């Protein structure tokens, strides 16, 4: 088995008296696309935040590339964080910068490029993420939801990270855009050896690109494994999730797509 780039062990997250995670274990292996699914409010985004260090878990530890993030000093931490690319649910683009400047910012700050080079490279990333050229000089406030997603992906990819965290990347995209997005993730993963941590509700994404699926329910990772085995798991919620009308449709669509290829 390949090495785990992220290991979460015994993670507990509580908000006041409400427990979101209890003794949660999760691994992300190098080069895989791991999808985390779960009902609304099952703590998927909280899990993401505790892994990337935006939230200190109440108990348990997270090691990234074999290092415990909480135990690192600021400089080492910044080194590790540079290897993360995070796409937040609502994009989290800086509203005072244009889209190009948003993507160029980490290139200037961390890769030490000149402004002209950084903006040129930012243009490449934006093109890669599928953003139309007319949007490059706009401010995030004047972009549509789908465009914000793409611009945010371009920013997440700016430093060619090792691990890509995606929080519901295809939500709010039209089906064509969502399918392109899936293919883009696959291409990047294959070419760059990215490890992808993907939170999604999009069953088509699940069936098309994921290597493993982790189901978050009852405050822990209920099952984790390849989609085919997870879908067969003996749990009513999982059964409803994968074998409901939408699950069946996505399964059929993925099957047809594979046959056509």
């Amino acid at each position: 088995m390949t090495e785990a780039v992220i290991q979460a062990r015994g993670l507990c997250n509580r908000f006041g008296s409400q427990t979101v995670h209890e003794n949660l274990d999760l691994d992300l292996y190098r080069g895989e696309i791991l999808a985390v699914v779960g009902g609304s409010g099952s703590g998927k985004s909280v899990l993401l935040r505790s892994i990337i260090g935006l939230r200190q878990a109440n108990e348990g530890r997270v090691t990234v590339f074999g290092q415990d993030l909480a135990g690192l000093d600021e400089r080492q931490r910044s080194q590790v964080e540079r290897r993360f690319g995070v796409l937040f649910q609502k994009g989290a683009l800086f509203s005072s910068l244009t889209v190009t400047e948003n993507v160029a910012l980490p290139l200037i700050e961390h890769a030490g490029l000149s402004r002209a080079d950084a903006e040129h490279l930012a243009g490449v990333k934006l093109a890669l993420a599928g953003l139309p050229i007319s949007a490059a000089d706009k401010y995030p406030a004047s972009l549509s939801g789908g465009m914000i997603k793409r611009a945010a992906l371009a920013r997440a990819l700016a430093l060619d990270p090792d691990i890509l965290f995606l929080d519901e990347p295809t939500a709010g995209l039209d089906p064509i855009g969502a399918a392109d997005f899936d293919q883009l993730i696959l291409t990047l993963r294959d070419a760059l050896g990215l490890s992808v941590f993907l939170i999604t509700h999009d069953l088509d994404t699940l069936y098309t690109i994921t290597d493993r699926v982790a189901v978050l329910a009852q405050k822990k990772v209920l099952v984790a494994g390849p989609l085919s085995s997870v879908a067969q798991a003996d749990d009513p919620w999982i059964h409803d999730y994968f074998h409901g009308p939408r699950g069946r449709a996505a399964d059929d669509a993925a099957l047809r797509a594979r046959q056509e290829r």
Partner: protein
Amino acid sequence: MTAPSATLDHQQPSSLRIAGDWTLAHYASLKRTCEQLRNQYSPDTAVDLSQLGRLDTAGASLLAELLGAERLERCTSTLSEANRALLQTVYRSVQNYCIPVKQPERPVLIQLLSRIGRAVDALWQDTLQVLGFIGLILQTLLLRLFQPQRWRLTPLVAHLEQTGLDAAPIVALLTFLVGAVVAFLGATVLAAFGATIFTVDLVAFSFLREFAVLLTAILMAGRTASAFTAQIGSMKANEEIDAIRTLGLNPIELLVVPRVLALLIALPLLTFVAMICGMVGGAVVCALSLGISPAMFLSLLQTDIGVQHFLVGLAKAPFFAFLIAAIGCLEGFKVSGSAESVGAHTTSAVVQSIFVVIVLDAIAALFFMEMGW
């Protein structure tokens, strides 16, 4: 990790050898190399990619630009499947994507004039908007005045607490201190004429007519106008205002009227607090450093200061209150989309309302003087 290189072999037939890691870390030097090479090699140059190490999107974009479509088809057979896919994906994306040329800047004089023109136009539009908004508020107020069942008492009381009660301590402290300062100033100047006793008149006169209402209004402009803008502005940014409209409700009635009424009640009350505290501040200084006892202070107040000064000061408060609340709410409605816009309009609300308060106070002072009140 190996250093990247692109070397051109000038023998016939010439060939270009790409080697090493083409990654972000080497971007700047690679870009220079590529720019030099682009003019040198001919279309029939063979390209050898077999020595290529790691490749990321930054390196791939340079390579794609250097080689062009046709060569990418021909020469990538030696590449790993993953690298070839990456190169082709990057090439396809950048193909039709070039950064647009920035328009040349216009002469400074033209820019200056156009900025002045825009600013004047914006000022005119703002003034029109404020007047229109005031009309809208008055209309809604009048319509609802005769429908007591649609008065919204709960938000009114809540805003009254926020804008009135919560502001009372700061207003009291501030005016107490200013009162003391005015008394000190008066004492110093008047001592030269042997007329320190008139410090009482100075403090009472200035606070009743001007300082109490002006200080309170400026404080409210900073504290309440900004709060109104931020509250309504974040609702606007979150599409809550649109939701109110689509539910068939009137945002003016729901959001603006309670705030305006609350400030209309709160500002005169706070002005009264400010008058008392300012004069207490003056009285304390008089008692401590001028030897004018509080009893004497009070009796001088009764004999020298007519009640019309109190009324002149208090009469201005509702006008200030209405304008501060209207400007605060209007700026909130002008917010568009982003959180940054909320900040910009909050600043604008404070500046505008302080400006309007001071201008109106100056006009009122002239008016009262001419009337001899």
